[in-house]
């Protein structure tokens, strides 16, 4: 529905977009050639993106959120022997993280060994805000959490959930930008939709 407000704000919005584009041109004036050319070629799409309402939000205490899905990115320092233990643990698990299934709010997570096995990069996508997310882990899978996090300096243990949350936040680096393809699809909603999809397929099979 085209309201009067929309019509009235349009010119202002166009002016804001023009300002932003101007700022981009200035920023890219000393960019490498490939970047300058790309800016020129990409202007039509950029104009559309700059005109859209903000899609970025926060995940509470720390981290970015888009719609219902948030990001958590931490670099954790290994204790002596921690890298070897965690690597062995991950190899034995072979990608079967049933504990994460049990939590039900995790979309994905990765474990990346960096800086000659002195640190781990852990990056995950999850539903909702930081504090309830960590509290959920502490309530549902404290053992699984202790098993992998005990390999890092200063980890206070999941039996002490608020100290554990502080410890994680202290190693977290909030993303400057975060994109999710389906920002309103929680892990739970995805499971429900998969169920609906299966039911519809079966129904159609029966009719056919």
């Amino acid at each position, binding site marked *: 529905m085209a309201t009067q407000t929309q019509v009235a704000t349009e010119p202002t919005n166009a002016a804001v977009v023009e300002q932003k584009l101007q*700022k981009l041109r200035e*920023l*890219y004036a000393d*960019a*490498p050639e*490939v*970047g300058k*050319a*790309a*800016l020129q*070629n*990409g202007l039509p*799409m*950029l104009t559309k*993106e*700059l005109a*859209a309402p903000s*899609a970025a*939000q926060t995940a509470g205490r720390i981290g*970015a959120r888009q719609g219902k899905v948030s990001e958590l*990115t931490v670099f954790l320092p290994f*204790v002596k*022997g921690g890298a*070897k233990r965690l690597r062995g643990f*991950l190899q*034995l*698990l*072979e990608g079967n*993280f*049933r*504990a*994460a299934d049990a939590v039900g709010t995790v*979309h*994905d*997570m*990765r474990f990346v*060994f960096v800086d000659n096995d002195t640190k781990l*990069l852990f*990056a995950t*996508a999850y539903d909702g805000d930081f504090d309830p997310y960590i509290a959920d882990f502490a309530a549902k899978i*404290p053992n*699984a959490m*202790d098993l992998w996090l*005990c*390999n890092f300096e200063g980890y206070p*243990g999941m039996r002490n959930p608020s100290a554990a949350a502080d410890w994680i936040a202290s190693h977290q*680096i*909030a*993303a400057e*930008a*975060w*994109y*999710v*393809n*389906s920002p309103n*699809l929680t*892990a739970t909603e*995805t499971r429900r*939709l998969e169920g*609906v999809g299966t039911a519809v397929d079966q129904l159609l099979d029966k009719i056919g």
Partner: protein
Amino acid sequence: MTTLEETRTGQDQSVEQTIQQLRALYADAPEMARVALEHALPALKSQALDAQAPTESAGRIGIRLGSVSELTVIAPFAPGGAQRLRAILRLLNGNFSGGQKVGTLHDMRFVFLDNDTKFLFATAYDGAWDPYIDDFATKIPDEMDIIFSAFEGWPGIHSPDVKDWIVKHQIPAEGWYVAHPDLTVAESGRLKRVGKTVEEFLDKVGN
């Protein structure tokens, strides 16, 4: 032919072995971890016996679970690159219509590291590494160059050296979990439409 019984026994033995290896690995772990391992063993055992397909290679580099792969890159900024990238990310404000255009991108994050000298780019995507990169080059070359020209040595998305640049800076994950490994971006789009249609249908039936 192996009977189901034999397969089961073989599996039991290999799980038993795995658990022994875990105990050995955790023998010199902090007390907290040894206790946690003993508590977690029953669950770990049943999960190992009930295992799904393990992670596989995503092709040239990176790992994949089901249909979904991971790509993690850490690279140094070019001079002035951090400032340019931060400004463009702030201006875009989370609106990456290019991501929708590619159609195989689940999520991506940009994280600035070490006082803006390095960045981390991490994404979850569908399928194998090479076709994924090819897709970016075909569908959103300008967006790629606008963003990645902030990094040291980025040769340009059309350069024959671009894949080597990415591989050089990519660090494959050693653990990768996806809640819905069989759900591609395309399939989740289809399911959203199916869900909506079913709701509309039920509404009509209800009226």
